[in-house]
């Protein structure tokens, strides 16, 4: 298990999984990019979207992709981010309807929450519904050890 920390987020990446914590370069001076965490049970391509464009197409049965995307302070207090703390995953949260990009055999979930006064979206894609229960347990173990700096 590798401890990965940057930009005010720390995560224990499970053994054999890959992780990145990044901030995109701002396109214009007025823009302030936020933290994005990517964790996957398979090799991540360098060219990938925040929510898995370029990634989920490569997934095979049993693969999982996690994106933790931080929103700006303007989102604080909004109803969508009312949940406090990192959410706990259950198998019924996963559905093909919750994918940002529908690909055959994949299920996903998208959860919004606030942690340490920082608003986040947790987006997860799993290839193969049969693997959801096992992977959800593994993901919960990882999510419990997420740390957020203020």
């Amino acid at each position, binding site marked *: 298990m590798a401890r990965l920390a940057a930009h005010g987020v720390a995560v224990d*990446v499970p053994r054999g999984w890959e*992780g*990145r914590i990044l901030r995109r370069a701002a396109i214009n001076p007025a823009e302030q990019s936020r933290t994005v965490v990517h964790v996957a049970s398979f090799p991540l391509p360098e060219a990938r979207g925040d929510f898995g464009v370029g990634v989920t197409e490569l997934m095979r049965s049993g693969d999982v992709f996690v994106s933790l995307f931080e929103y700006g302070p303007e989102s604080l207090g909004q109803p969508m981010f009312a949940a406090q703390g990192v959410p706990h995953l259950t198998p019924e949260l996963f559905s093909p309807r919750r994918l940002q990009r529908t690909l055959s055999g994949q299920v996903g979930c998208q959860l919004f929450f606030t942690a340490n006064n920082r608003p986040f979206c947790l987006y997860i894609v799993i290839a193969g519904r049969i693997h959801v229960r096992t992977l959800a347990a593994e993901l919960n173990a990882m999510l419990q050890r997420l740390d957020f700096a203020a």
Partner: protein
Amino acid sequence: MTALIAIETVVLVLLTIVVTGLLRSHGEILRRLHALGAGLDPDTAEQQPAELRPRGDLPRAGEGLGPAADIAGVGLRDDAVSIPVVGVPHRTLLAFLSSGCLTCRGFWEAFADPRALGLPADVRLVAVTKDAAEESLHALRDVAPPDLAVVMSTAAWEHYTVPGSPYFALVDGTEGRVVGEGTGASWQQVQSLLTHTTGDERAGSRFLNGAADTEARIDRELLVHGILPGDPRLYRAADELDRAH
């Protein structure tokens, strides 16, 4: 007049000493560059025999690479990176490079075209440089291809006891050990590392897949299932698909 001649003689002797020193220094630099495989004559460099070897054929006494270890460090764009090489079903070719060495430049250029590398399907290429304190981040951003995984990690260099750049280590993720190591002046020489240490190409690569590859693969799969351009099934909404499941 005598004094003038004496002064000129002294100056001449001093100049001779300086020039001799410069020539010796220049010769030493050329000799070391040649030893590193970065001689000035490109033809000579190409003809040098590869120094690559399967691990175990010629172990470095007391300096072997030892077991493999995952790569963790920072990327080139202010990101933290953790790339597993142990406990994974594929092999990883770790390319220890720097932004400054002349020989490395050829590898950075070669890595810009992953298809031309001819890597076996189950081999993932990861470039590893030293930390930002010992590297030029700006220079690395210039030379590193955007699709190449690059990790800055002096710790990895130390773990793999890398003698200098360029250097390559092939890690078998299933066995968790280094199965080949060495250096070379060109990508063709490094390829011999793979052919020495492995057998046939294994199917199912996802390391060379860019967006074009993905699109082509999806098109092929759709065609196999009789789904042609314009097929209404391509435009079904997510909830329709969910009901179908």
